[in-house]
């Protein structure tokens, strides 16, 4: 199952794609794989593509949130891309948050964000 996560280095970024229904071992493997690749490639950030993911549980949410913090500590930036509407609604309803991680509608838009730098109207 752990092999279902694909971590691809694109320029100075890591493009991480999650399988449709990640189980706990897969989620656990995510952290190790991402951090390992961060060190190996000296990447500037992580794009986590979850557009295929149909279910999001608290363990996944926490792992993603923690991994993002770790990536930040390693000097990188994490953007989550492509969450499905149904997943977002469920996540909000059961009170799951992804902390302050940046989100993007698609991987394409996430790539735009990495070239433009962080942007938030909340800071304006």
């Amino acid at each position, binding site marked *: 199952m752990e092999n279902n996560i694909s971590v691809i280095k694109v320029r100075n970024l890591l493009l991480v794609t999650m399988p449709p229904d990640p189980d706990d071992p897969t989620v656990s493997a995510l952290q190790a794989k991402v951090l390992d690749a961060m060190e190996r490639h000296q990447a500037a950030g992580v794009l986590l593509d979850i557009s295929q993911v149909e279910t999001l549980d608290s363990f996944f949410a926490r792992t993603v949130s923690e991994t993002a913090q770790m990536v930040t500590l390693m000097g990188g930036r994490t953007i989550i891309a492509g969450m499905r509407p149904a997943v977002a609604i469920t996540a*909000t309803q059961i009170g799951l948050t992804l902390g302050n991680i940046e*989100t993007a509608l*698609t991987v394409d838009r996430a790539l735009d964000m990495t070239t433009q730098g962080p*942007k938030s109207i909340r800071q304006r």
Partner: protein
Amino acid sequence: MEKSLVIAPAVLQIFPKLNRSTYDSLDFATLSSMKKPSPSTSAKSVSTEKDGVTSIDMLRVLVDSIKDYAIITLDPAGRVLSWNPAAERLKVWKAEEIIGQHFSRFYPKEDIEKGKTDMELKAAERDGRFEDEGWRVRKDGTRFWANVIITPLRDPTGKLLGFGKVTRDMTEQRQLSERIKKQTQEILEMATVPVVPVWEGILLVPLIGTLDSQRTQHLMERLLQRITETNSPVAVLDITGVPTIDTQTAQHIIETISSVRLLGAEVILTGVRPIIAQTLVHLGIDLSNVVTRSSLASGLRTALSLMDLAVTPKAVATNSDTQWKTTSQS
């Protein structure tokens, strides 16, 4: 042959010279005897031949002329005894093809398997009448939506002679009422939660009227759906038309905004009027995480700046236009 039918004399006057038609399959005398007319009604009824026209002829003409109702009779076992032209038109079967056959020929397979035909006859016999609306089948296998009334026909002693079955094609009415239902639903949905793209990448949700839980739930689903469909990174939620906001509504709005952020889009809450601002603060609702603006106009400006766009006066735009032209020529 005894003829004691109750027919309005006026009808006879309209058709004074009718010849007796030949309907051998149906014994109208027997049918008529079931009426059991009381002395007062039999006085008014036409019971004898008048100018060579009988009331039975009239009834036959009536049954033959009626276009909207398939009027047929069945024997006690449910086999077809008589058939009228309207029945032929509706069900396609010709009289000679169908007479003698069981009336389950008009029913869909699943109804026959459920024993619906027997149930209908039993119900009619027991209650004196059976009415039903449902799918029926034509000779060619196509279906139509029918209103069916089955009436038991009895002789004066109460012995069951058979059944009268009147069928009307209601397909059009059904389609019409379903279309109306669908349209009403669509209008209702549009009115409750309109999600309008106002610019490439900017969706506007003008909310009018009180927001209840069901509506905000609907709003959340529709907005998220539209955001992904149109790939819009900004949504402007305008609450100018919302009269009051309570804790629950505010909570729903905050939830909607959180969900939208998980998708990777941003929400700007506009139309926060003084009274709404007061209420929100007094209720202790924290919207510090949410971008709020008092007017839709300033909200749109914020949305545009989020997209790195700006609205400039036309003169400036023309200048840059000419500049572009000169540079492209050089």
